[in-house]
């Protein structure tokens, strides 16, 4: 047997006793033994199978229960998303906005009709309409309400409720006005409850209640493109004017609280400014987009 064969067999741990003796006779036997012994200090660190398996077990538990209900969870998640989107969109409030000098007509889920005046906002909920006819209003609107359940117009200043009628609600900053044109309108404010018959109105300006003169018209003037006022503080007339024309009006503080009776058109700025300023003996001058009102 050659030297190489012996070494091969030694490497394979398969020397028999005779070959072992022959192997020990090799001249590099001592060298090989030295190398072999030295190699043992390069042994890999202890790897405890049992301990490591116990350490691994917690990370296995999760998976085994997941394997069957994971696809089910995916389906359930998709269904849940679909349902919530459906639910969300069907119960979502409908919102309508108008810009300055814009008007829009809104048909409510029953045959009721709302005409929304400039710079106003109306919100109602379609899905709960059958139970509650509620609309939220910020601004001015004219309502033609179909007969049926109680119809509520909710504003910060008060709730206007009716059964079937035509009326106008105006709710601006520090200004709240309700006017009845047909039927019977109930107005509930923080302090009291008032019922309005056709032609009658109610006005709350800066927290003070004003009685309205009886007025025989079938619909508010703004539907015809003009606004009229009776004994109204001038500043509210100015802010109204700003709702119809895209301008900024500067007015003296002393003039702002004067009472104004009159009206202005929504279609012609020059004409509107004249009809606002002449009764109060004021003159106006333009500078850019703002208009300054002064005493003559």
């Amino acid at each position, binding site marked *: 047997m050659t030297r190489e064969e012996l070494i091969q067999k030694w490497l394979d741990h398969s020397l028999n006793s005779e070959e072992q003796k022959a192997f020990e006779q090799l001249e590099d036997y001592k060298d090989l033994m030295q190398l072999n012994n030295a190699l043992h200090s390069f042994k890999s660190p202890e790897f405890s199978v049992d301990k490591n398996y116990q350490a691994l077990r917690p990370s296995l538990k999760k*998976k085994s229960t997941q394997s069957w209900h994971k696809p089910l969870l995916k389906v359930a998640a998709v269904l849940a998303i679909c349902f919530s989107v459906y639910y969300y969109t069907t119960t979502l409030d409908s919102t309508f906005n108008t810009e300055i000098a814009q008007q829009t007509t809104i048909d409510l889920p029953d045959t009721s009709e709302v005409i929304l005046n400039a710079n106003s906002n109306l919100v109602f909920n379609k899905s709960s309409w059958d139970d509650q006819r509620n609309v939220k209003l910020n601004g001015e609107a004219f309502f033609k309400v179909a007969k049926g359940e109680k119809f509520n117009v909710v504003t910060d200043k008060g709730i206007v409720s009716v059964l079937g009628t035509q009326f106008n609600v105006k709710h601006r900053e520090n200004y709240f006005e309700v006017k009845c044109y047909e039927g019977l309108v109930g107005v509930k404010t923080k302090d009291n409850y008032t019922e309005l018959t056709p032609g009658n109105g109610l006005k709350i300006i800066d927290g003070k209640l004003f009685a309205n003169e009886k007025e025989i018209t079938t619909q508010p003037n703004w539907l015809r493109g003009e606004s009229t006022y009776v004994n109204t503080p001038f500043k509210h007339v100015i802010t109204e004017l700003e709702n119809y024309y895209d301008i900024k009006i500067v007015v003296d503080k002393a003039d702002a609280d004067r009472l104004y009776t009159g009206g202005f058109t929504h279609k012609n700025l020059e004409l509107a400014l004249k009809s606002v300023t002449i009764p109060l003996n004021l003159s106006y001058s333009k500078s850019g987009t703002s208009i300054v009102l002064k005493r003559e």
Partner: protein
Amino acid sequence: MSQPIKDNICEEQLFERIYKKHSKNLHDFLYYKFGDHLNPSDKVQEAFIKLWQNCGKVTPDKAKSFLFTTANNLMLNAVAHRKVVLKFEKIPQKKSTNETPEFVLQEKEYHEKLQKALGKLTEAQRVAFLMNRVEGKKFKEIAVLLDISTKAVEKRIYGALKKLREDIDGL
């Protein structure tokens, strides 16, 4: 395998058997191939977790090669990530001290030479050689473990021995 009927290993008892059978060999393989910089025992655990996650797709007789391939890839990723050149190194264990200082010094020198020489072997040579010499495995066992022929194992180990001895003498 004792259960040739099974087509997956999603059963904890079976998985545990596979763990007990392969984890130590896998650990040694990683250690001898890459050294201990990259924490071979962590990679063993990671490979087994991956095996468990894929238990439905792996048959029992494919488990071993899945584990070795996965663990090897994990190691290679870690190597690429760290961008370090691996050297095989290990501090020699302290032995009894009732030897002459000269002998201790010689021994130390020899160890250093051996360490360098081991580092110079190819990964394939080193893994096969150390499994054979240190873990006492026969050629055939190593061949099964590495999915190569017995002849190839023989060649690697014999080549490694030759190269080691040349290198030690040359140093």
